[in-house]
């Protein structure tokens, strides 16, 4: 570890700083959590995990994040496609705008979206007039999660689409292949991996998202409570054990998604000899 024969100096110093920071800000808090959670006792843990109100909350988080991830996968692909392959006015602005959800505080997005989609809101009035509740409903949660997830897919697909070898398409063109066939048989397979990466990131982010969702969700028990909100609620009731139990379930869920996608990708890529991008 402490190679004294390094040509480039600074191994000890950077190792020391890194280790200190990782310990202070990541490892010790994580350990505190694990220690606390492990002292909980299996019965208490199980009853907190399987409490029906909590189970419902995981379900809401999971399905809304899933639907939002799918919507983002679709629109993210269209946005990346348009930005890479077409020239039009306002393209630069569109490109810059995509990152807005990274830059805009989630609470701001939350209150803005709530006001927009509420019954008397600018967009909400249309939805409510046809009997769709676009706020304080699972749909509202999904809208907020679409907002926070916009950059993930677009930014994953964009560079891959840009680097796509144009000769592939030219070769297909020589055979007189149709547009749809070229897209579905030649371009789309190249984009599956970045699409999945972006989708997984948006999905995982959606499950843990709190700030943008909490305003538009309405937070009605057994209806529009999300998992992170349940943690907040338990904390406010000083029920730390239940909060920890819900946190464990959420972390397992995110981890399963990320690992699942990663595993799928490396299996796929092994077949074609690529490198996992996530």
């Amino acid at each position, binding site marked *: 570890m402490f190679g004294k024969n390094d040509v480039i100096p600074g191994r000890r110093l950077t190792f020391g700083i890194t280790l200190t920071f990782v310990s202070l800000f990541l490892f010790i808090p994580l350990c505190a959590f694990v220690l606390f959670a492990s002292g909980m006792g299996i019965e208490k843990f199980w009853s907190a995990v399987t409490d029906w109100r909590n189970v419902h909350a995981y379900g809401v988080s999971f399905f809304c994040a899933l639907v939002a991830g799918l919507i983002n996968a679709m629109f993210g692909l269209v946005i990346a496609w*348009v930005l890479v392959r077409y020239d039009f006015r306002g393209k630069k602005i569109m490109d810059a705008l995509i990152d807005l959800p990274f830059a805009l505080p989630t609470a701001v997005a939350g209150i803005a979206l709530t006001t927009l989609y509420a019954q008397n809101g600018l967009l909400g009035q249309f939805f409510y007039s046809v009997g769709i509740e676009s706020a304080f409903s699972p749909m509202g949660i999904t809208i907020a999660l679409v907002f926070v997830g916009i950059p993930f897919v677009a930014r994953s697909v964009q560079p891959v689409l840009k680097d796509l070898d144009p000769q592939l398409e030219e070769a297909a063109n020589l055979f007189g292949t149709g547009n749809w066939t070229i897209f579905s048989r030649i371009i789309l397979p190249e984009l599956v991996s970045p699409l999945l990466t972006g989708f997984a990131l948006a999905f995982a982010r959606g499950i843990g998202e709190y700030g943008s969702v909490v305003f538009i969700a309405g937070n009605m028990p057994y209806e529009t409570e999300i998992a992170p909100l349940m943690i907040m609620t338990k904390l406010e009731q000083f029920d730390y054990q239940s909060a920890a139990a819900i946190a464990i379930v959420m972390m397992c869920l995110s981890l399963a998604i990320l690992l699942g996608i990663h595993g799928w990708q490396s299996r796929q890529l092994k077949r074609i000899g690529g490198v996992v991008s996530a």
Partner: protein
Amino acid sequence: MRESIWLRRFLIFLAATFLFVMLIMPLILVVKEALAKGFEVYFKALTDEFALKALYLTVEATILAIALNTIFGLASAWLLTKFDFRGKTFLGSLIDLPFAISPVIAGLFFIMLFGRMSPLYPILQEYDVAIVFAIPGIILATVFVTFPFITRELVPVMESQGRSEEEAAATFGASGWTIFRRVTLPNIKWALGYGIILCSARAMGEFGAVSVVSGHIRGKTNTLPLHIEILYNEYNFTAAFAVASVLVMLAIFVLILRNVVEYYSKDIEREEVVEPSADLKVGVANG
């Protein structure tokens, strides 16, 4: 592949509409609601004592998060790219961990570590140190959620630069500090700037983690996003949107800055003009 003009127009229209509805409309709405009751109310909301205190705390937490994460980012990126050691991949994944963890859970970690049920709590009480439900907790939570940002920006850039420039400098006996300052830093300055921008955007907007550890003590432990929440829940919408409009402006500033940084970093690459070696003959003759 040549799509018809109609398909192109349709796709551009689709993307533009989606982004307009999802991103532009909320921004316009924030401004509209903020000014709904005129400029006087708007400025009053901004200069409100609690709003200013929240702004002050947000700035404080952001600056500290940037400072700490810059030190950490540079050290960890140097360690990860300039040396080989066992457990390198593990360390890399550990640093990325905060990306995979919900901010609310991140806040929970610090409650577990310093809160009432922690073994550290009696010690902290004895010395009268408050961490959770106080400013240090907010800063810790902010550093946690922004932890990977700068490292993540630096590592790929430093990886692609390789080690040979640093090795070359070392063959002349340059010290570690000289190598870093004169050779490495100029090569990574744009990536570092970009990382700092991302880090500050996230730090000033963080809600979930900060919300958990803050305890919502008005005027004491509220950051701007938390202040917005309180105002909104009190049905003081105009004030909430007025404060939000400040954050919108900051967000737009961040986006512009981001694009400026990106433009300049590409500009450097564009300078790569390979000239024909017409002068070589002269060179050989002189040698």
